[in-house]
């Protein structure tokens, strides 16, 4: 696969210093009839021009491919994996992969790709608000060998990055809708009798069932987990959450979905345009989160 376009070559700010050096050399050469100075000056000029060609050729053969980025929550950083491959027989050096359109992005760096080889890396940039975004425009820059010229290769990928809404809100799961009392959800977890085990405590969870004795002994915080707590069926209804604005509802739903999944419950989401049946598991969670991310009003929806 060849690149769609050729790299663009531009001089960098280092060329300014070269200019002053050239001036000094010219002055020395002419005022003193110093041919040695001229020779040095021409060497520098010639090697800089040839290095421009080298910089261009260094990038010319490189093929960029953006790989699917794992979805993230709003406020986190998108990690965009890329693969740079060098189909030629000579190695390429010094490739920086940037996302010029994203503020606060951290570029990826590949020092050397041998002939007929490829290298992976990733660049990160802060995820904007929720939504489904096209992968950031990526630019591969190389200043090899001397840094006097920079060759740039732009690449746009058809990949899309899904940014879930930031999970926020009441961490306690609502029971099934039928138990709703008044305008607020009652939060009453049904107490089961059978001790089913312990699982690690996650910050933000209810602290009611923490195993304090073990914690006093020095163990990390664990939640005592009873049979009967898992397996709840809960259907989250977007329409009913009238005490929250739209985005806050989505954030709340995300949090609940995460908690429900972690709690091993069956959960589903009812949105105005879409209903996700009860279920559980990674795939189900992903479907729910995605639906919430794609809710109209966010980016790209």
């Amino acid at each position, binding site marked *: 696969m060849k690149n769609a376009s050729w790299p663009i070559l531009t001089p960098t700010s280092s060329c300014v210093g070269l200019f002053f050096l050239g001036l000094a050399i010219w002055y020395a050469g002419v005022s003193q009839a110093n041919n040695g*100075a001229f020779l040095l000056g021409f060497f520098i000029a010639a090697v800089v021009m040839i290095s421009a060609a080298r910089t261009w050729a260094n990038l010319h053969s490189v093929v960029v491919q953006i790989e699917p980025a794992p979805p993230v929550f709003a406020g986190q950083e998108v990690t965009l994996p890329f693969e740079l491959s060098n189909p030629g*027989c000579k190695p390429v050096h010094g490739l920086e992969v940037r996302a010029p359109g994203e503020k606060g992005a951290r570029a990826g760096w590949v020092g050397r790709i041998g002939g007929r080889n490829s290298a992976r890396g990733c660049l990160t940039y802060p995820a904007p608000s929720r939504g489904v975004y096209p992968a950031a425009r990526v630019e591969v820059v190389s200043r090899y060998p001397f840094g006097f010229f920079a060759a740039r290769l732009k690449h746009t990928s058809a990949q899309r990055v899904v940014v879930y809404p930031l999970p926020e809100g009441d961490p306690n799961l609502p029971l099934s809708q039928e138990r709703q009392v008044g305008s607020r959800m009652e939060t009453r977890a049904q107490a089961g009798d059978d001790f089913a085990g312990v699982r690690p405590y996650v910050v933000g969870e209810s602290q009611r069932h923490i195993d304090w004795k073990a914690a006093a002994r020095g163990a990390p915080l664990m939640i005592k987990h009873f049979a009967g707590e898992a397996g709840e069926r809960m259907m989250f209804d977007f329409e009913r959450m009238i005490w929250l604005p739209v985005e806050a509802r989505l954030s709340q739903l995300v949090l609940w979905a995460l908690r429900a999944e972690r709690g091993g419950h069956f959960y589903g989401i009812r949105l105005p345009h879409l209903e996700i049946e009860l279920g559980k598991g990674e795939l189900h969670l992903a479907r729910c989160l995605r639906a919430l991310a794609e809710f109209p009003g966010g980016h790209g929806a």
Partner: protein
Amino acid sequence: MSTATLENLGPRSALRLLCGAMLLGLLPLFGYVSVVSVLLLLIVLLYRLTGRHLTRGWVNLGRLVIGTIGVAAIYARYGGFLGMEPGISVLVLLIALKAVEARNRRDFRILTLLALFLCLTMLFYSQSLPMVSFAVVVLALALGGLILLETRGESSSLRALGEAGRLLLMAVPLVALLFVLFPRNLEVSFALRRGLFAQSGMNDELRPGSVSSLALSNEDAFRVTFPDGEIPPQSQLYWRGAVLTYGNGMEWDPGVEDWGAWREQTLGGPLIRQRILLRPHGDFWLYALDRPAADVGTGLLRPGHVLRSRTRINTRISYDAISRMEDTETVLSANEKTLLTRAPRQVSARVRNLVEELTGEESQPAEIVQGALRFFRRNNFTYTISPGELTGDELDQFLFEQRAGFCEHYAASFATLMRLAGLPSRVVVGFQGGEPNRAANYVIVRNSDAHAWTEVWLEGKGWERVDPTSVVAPGRLVSGMDTFLQGGTDAAAEAGGLAQSSGAIGLRAIWQEVRLTWDNVQMQWDLHVMDYGREQQQTMLSLAGLSWMGARKLLAAMAAILFLAATLAAIWFSISNRVQDDPVGRLYASFCARAARAGIPRERAEGPSAFARRVAEAFPGRAGAIEAFASEYLRRRYGPVKNDDISALRSRLRRIVLRRG
């Protein structure tokens, strides 16, 4: 440290290479610029060479200390900051200041640029072939450092240097072209102040010891080629520098500058042309073979047949000179005669007696000259470079007590004797001899060849050269000072050229050969490359039919060549970075093409075995060969094949000959 700073931190390997480059670049400046600033930079570089960074507090303190000491030292040494030596010292100091604090990539880049400036300064000192090569080596190291910067230290220093070297090598033909084309007719009217590295050379006062002190130096004074033909014999190689007409016994001075009317056409004999490459000496002397007959490009012919430059010789220059061997100035005005016979009034009794002896016996001037020479020959005078100090009446001491001296003693005393005898005479200071490189037809004249002799005016003949050294130490004139001092005179007196006079054949002769060849190489470098100026460029351009190109067109041509070269280089780099060959695939494609030509094209999604079967069915006669090919192909393509030998595949393909059936 934040992540951003970590990323920007310059790699240690780059710093080390850069420090190495600058240490090398500093070497040629030792002894020529402020020692203190050089030492300061040396210390800083040696410290940074270990790859260590200093913390902010130490950095600031260090810079303060270095700055203060350096500035004070420069001011103390030079009394100011303008001029070449103080300027370069300031540059060295600036580099030291920057090198103390450099830690991130941007700093390293600035340091590299400063290293390149250092490269330039070493070329102010000398532009010999070794020096220019050295500058290119330092350039290569600096470029290697840049490569390490751009690979963020992930490549090895050796590989980086290799890449830098390769790129420089590719640049060589381009450099040659640019060098030849760059217009040389641009002149800058303001010259730098008296340059650093102008050697002190001859001066126009003659004192006991003034020439001998110069003769200790083996440095080049100038080189001469004779475009017309052979190098004249050693004993004829007198190089005229200055004429001294005011004498006081053993001490002589130039005297009144513009004595005598300027008369042309007072020289005779064959015309000898020379091309002279003069090393800078900071004064106005222009040397040429005795006796210069015409103005040269950069100087004028002055009374006494000496050449004087219009400006100080602070840079290497070359010029063409014309000389004629004989002086035929048969007329001397009364004024001149008085001037040129002015002798010291007080002389010792012995000297007076000697003069009376010389003039009493004979009255012919020529006989007087011979008589004086005989005096020197018969009285065991010796020629030595360190005769000891003369005290009291120096002339008397020399002639009757010490009787040992260098050429200045003999020339001065002889000329004085002549004047006391009433003959107009003068002292000439210059050089005698030189080291001929007969293979390459040039002569190297060194400071050690400095010489002083006299000229006596004989009625009806003109100014005759009389060299008293020739009677005291005849070997000196033939073998040159170098060999003479080494005691090789006896053999030299009979022998001619240098090869024989070097004494023992064998190692010494071989070494001599090597030295001369290397000297020749450098000479050619100086002559053709470093000396490349307006005239040479005009010659080259007219040879190429391009003499119509003015400065602007030449510059435009240079720019065009630069861009063309860059484009060619880009093409070259792209081509040499071929995408992977797939010989097996090519052979299979050739099989498919063959089958298609025979009427069985391969379907798009058809696999190799299925396709091969189809072709075999259509051409049952070739079924065996087709199957063999197909199985080999599958083995190569999909099987665990170790070697790259595809000759079997190729031969099997050859056996498949399909004809449209």
